[in-house]
């Protein structure tokens, strides 16, 4: 894939920050989460590094270990996340800027939780009371 190095990293980074700002405004106004697929853009490694550096480091970082490692961390901008998904071979399959209260990959699914509850009950020596259905 070609890159836009000849345009200068600063210009590309500025454009992406503007797009991220639009997504954040959308979330604040309407509650709609959004994301930017960085792998789908012809960005050079230096541009990605500049973008990552400009966004800075925030308060939260998490690793999800399933089908390879996914790492998501909040940038210095609250609600703006830098998320990297890799497969079992370590190949990056998606690199996203996400705008959300919490990235969806971190949220526990209710059906998964229901399966977890059954396992939890099996872990105890007591027979826990089941909620009335």
């Amino acid at each position, binding site marked *: *894939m070609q890159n836009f190095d000849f345009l200068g990293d600063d210009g590309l980074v500025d454009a992406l920050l503007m797009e991220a700002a639009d997504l954040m405004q959308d979330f604040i106004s309407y509650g709609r989460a959004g994301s930017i697929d960085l792998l789908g853009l012809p960005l050079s490694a230096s541009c990605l590094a500049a973008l990552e550096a400009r966004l800075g480091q925030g308060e939260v970082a998490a690793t999800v270990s*399933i089908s390879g490692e996914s790492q998501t961390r909040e940038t210095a901008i609250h609600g703006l996340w830098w998320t990297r998904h890799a497969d079992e*071979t370590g190949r990056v399959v998606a690199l996203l800027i996400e705008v959300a209260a919490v990235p969806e990959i971190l949220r526990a699914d209710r059906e998964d939780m229901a399966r977890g509850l059954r396992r939890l009950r099996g872990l105890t020596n007591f027979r826990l009371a089941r909620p009335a259905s």
Partner: protein
Amino acid sequence: MSAADATLGEMLGKSGFSRRGLLKFSIAMTASLALPPGVASAMAANLAQARRQSVIWLSFQECTGCLETLLRTSSPTIAALIFDYISLDYQEALMSAAGSAAELTLRQAVAANRGKYLLAIDGSVPVADGGVYSLTGGQANVSMLQQFAPDAAAILAIGTCAAYGGIPKAYPNPTGAVGVEDVITNKPIVNIPGCPPVPEVLSGVLVYFVSFGRLPDLDDRKRPLAYFGTTIHDQCYRRPFYDQGKFAKSFDDEGARQGWCLFELGCKGPTTHNACASLKWNDNTSFPIESGHGCLGCSEPDFWDQEGGFYTSLAGGKGPGWEDTGIAAAGGIAVGAAAAFAARHKTAKPPQGPQK
């Protein structure tokens, strides 16, 4: 509940695969299909509710290279796809049944999934002399195609042979080999050409179909736009050297090692649409141009018979006439980059709803 009745979400849950895993898979597929990343959640939700898609795979006049590349890839996506997301109800090389038992399996699979199955074809269809040059169980391939296509939801023509006739169609084409679309004209067909095709393209098409109940957007040759919307040339890491007029003069010369363009050595990248340069091969390791050989154009029709052969440049044996590249180079790179960017992003649109 039988496996056929269970949703994919239920099946995956029983095997310990969480919805996070399904979401991650969908995020990766969304990126692969060049869909907006916001579609991933909908894709994951749809996949969780979907039931295994029946696929009936018929092999015609072929070398088994397509099947080999799809199965021997170490990409876990393919294995997951084969075993979790589709029900491969018939494939002669993989199934244990043989002879009349295999034929019975085929007819049972068709009867059980009438109007719903995807018919996957690899290999060209020989039509000369009544199609006698390739038979299965005594039945001509062309006859089988005509028999099983009407009850399919759609047809996947896998590999250049199934898509366009491929090498069997090469001059003088003694068997009268043609592609699937030359025989079947009233069914949705997706061509996934390549000799062999890139495995991720097949998985992308299958997942898209299972997720949204329709085929992805196609180009004028019925190829998925997300993967065939740009040329190898537009995605090639050697492209800047083309724009600067720097060409390797022989294989593995100093220029070639420096990454200079292989155009003068016959590379067909500028006229070949495929995803090799972005998805690459062998777990994203490399692709032919990165290994020092020009693109053969294997995903284009009649690639074996192209004028001048594999080692004559598209300009007839010379470079593309870039003597005045001084000023043009930067502009050329700009145009190339912008074209690749624009093509990638205009190719795929969010799915609009079922088509079947």
